[in-house]
């Protein structure tokens, strides 16, 4: 077993590993902080007046608050080597059911809120059962359930926008305690704090790390692996339900197509924060910094009047970039890839280069051909 042997090599340079172990706990926070500083510096040059306004800070915080509970829960899911691609739909569906209960059936607002969170938890439970009992891989399972939940939301709400909610809901979404932070920010920070206690001081947190770190070992030591995986999805669903409430309150409106980018956004925030997609490595403080970073980045895009749709591009690029970076940082022997040029010279990679060149060439050729043969433009609108 080559993996084992590599891990057991006792002769790694003690100085380097010492520095690495001492830096390791801060790794998660250093990455996003560095990127936050970069954004701050960039915006200080580009748009200081509009970016560094107190009202803009408030916007950033409100945006971040919405994602904090979900990022907390997603940290557990990803630490267990799982993923949840259904949280946007869970948020929308929970929000819509809450809206109907309050507006159509006259439920008290507080019961509506608790219903949304419980329904979210229930949908998370369904995810967990699909993954553990039906043995559908998490990626496919939650992607399919995403379609199901979004479908139910559309069936329920059709094209309707449900708007104007009781004060309790709008307070949760955008209220402000006179003497303190905005209410959603307080909620977000409290869920993060609760997540920290969960991670460090409970069986669930400990087993989440163990399951992600070494699933076979976790099973062998008698840990109820399936149950704790289900717990993570239930927590995830509940927090997505809470986000549905917060979103409804923030906009004072909800519709079936709300929250389309929650999945990517939350996963990006967690991964940027140093929680490893390969499991076992959890950092809640990193997830917190990741959420803040993404909110600042998106706010910067808005401030620079860059089209909304670039958000999606930015989130995707951030995920790839940070996973690549962390994987590279955690590689045991980095001297194998001394130079990029040398790596490109291996026969295997040369074949890949040739393939890339062929595809780029083909596309270029087709574009040129189309250009030459082009007739009159034929606008679809």
């Amino acid at each position, binding site marked *: 077993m080559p993996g084992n042997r590599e891990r057991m090599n006792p002769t790694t340079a003690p100085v380097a590993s010492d520095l690495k*172990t001492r830096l*390791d706990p801060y790794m998660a926070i250093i990455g996003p902080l560095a990127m936050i500083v970069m954004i701050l510096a960039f915006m200080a040059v580009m748009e200081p007046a509009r970016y560094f306004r107190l009202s803009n800070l408030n916007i950033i915080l409100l945006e971040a608050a919405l994602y904090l509970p979900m990022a907390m829960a997603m940290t557990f899911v990803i630490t267990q080597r799982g993923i949840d691609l259904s949280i946007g739909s869970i948020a929308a569906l929970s929000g819509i059911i809450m809206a109907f209960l309050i507006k159509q059936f006259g439920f008290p607002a507080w019961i509506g809120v608790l219903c949304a969170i419980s329904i979210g938890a229930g949908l998370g439970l369904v995810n967990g059962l699909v993954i553990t009992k039906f043995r559908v891989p998490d990626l496919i399972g939650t992607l399919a359930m995403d379609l199901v939940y979004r479908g139910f939301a559309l069936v329920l709400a059709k094209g309707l926008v449900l708007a104007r909610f009781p004060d309790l809901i709008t307070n949760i979404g955008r209220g402000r305690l006179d003497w303190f932070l905005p209410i959603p920010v307080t909620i977000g920070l409290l869920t993060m704090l609760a997540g920290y206690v969960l991670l460090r001081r409970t069986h669930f947190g400990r087993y989440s*790390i163990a399951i992600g770190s070494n699933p076979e070992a976790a099973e062998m030591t008698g840990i109820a692996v399936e149950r704790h995986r289900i717990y993570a999805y239930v927590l995830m669903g509940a927090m997505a339900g809470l986000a549905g409430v917060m979103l409804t309150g923030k906009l004072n409106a909800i519709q079936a197509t709300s929250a389309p980018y929650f999945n990517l956004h939350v996963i990006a925030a967690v991964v940027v924060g140093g929680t490893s997609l390969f499991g076992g490595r959890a950092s809640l403080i990193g997830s917190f910094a990741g959420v803040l970073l993404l909110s600042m980045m998106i706010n910067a895009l808005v401030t620079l009047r860059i089209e909304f749709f670039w958000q999606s591009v930015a989130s995707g690029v951030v995920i790839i970039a940070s996973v690549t970076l962390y994987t590279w940082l955690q590689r045991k022997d980095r001297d194998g890839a001394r130079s990029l040029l040398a790596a490109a010279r291996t026969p295997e990679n040369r074949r890949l280069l040739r393939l890339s060149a062929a595809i780029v060439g083909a596309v270029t050729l087709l574009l040129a051909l189309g250009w030459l043969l082009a007739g009159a433009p034929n606008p679809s609108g």
Partner: protein
Amino acid sequence: MMTDARPIVTMRGICKRFGGVAALTDVDLDAYSGEVLAVVGDNGAGKSTLIKILTGVYQPTSGTMEMDGRPFEMNSHSDAIARGIDAVYQTLALADHLDAAANVFLGNELTRRIAGVTLLDNQRMRSEAERVLFERIGVRLPDMNAATESLSGGQRQAIAIARAVYHTDLRVLVMDEPTAALGPQETERTLNLIATLKAQGLAIILISHSLDDVFAISDRVLVMRRGRRAGVVNTAESTRQDVLGLIVGGNDAW
């Protein structure tokens, strides 16, 4: 050599079939307190299957097991642990992102109730883990807070063993190829460690490919060949040639 005349555990006439394959046929085994029993044999001879039956991971197709002279059956590895039989596997079952204490207590955490809520008692687990590692295994880790992935093979093995011996009622410890992935120094240290545990009165069952290790540490050698017990010899009274002969089985038609 044998500090106790009566074995702790006996296995008699153990057979194990996987579908049509007879992995074990009519195997006997005795484990005595304060004794190291080495189990050797070629690849596929049935060593791992035999100890998996002893540790409750597999159930025998037929055959009986006795502990202190009383017959017993096991349905899972936790049954074995409850009876004082545990194993340290070839692939150490550590969660390498957790620290030493978390691994020693994995699945068995010490807790504390605070305001009606059960929380992990990380402090007590740390001090207990440190104590077990030092007092029973003689290992002091440079940093109890470090994730075990940053530790050496020998240290990680010490943690895996500490997990097994933490149960004060552990009586039989099975080790599957404990030195296979270690360098000479760490091997030396592991052999010393086995001697320490033996002196504490444990029955040690050591699966090994290394005849050096077997002759350095064991009291008896059980040789397996193609699912059968080819023989049991006293280490002090036999040579490597004897054992090798039993492993290869020179008289066979193939």
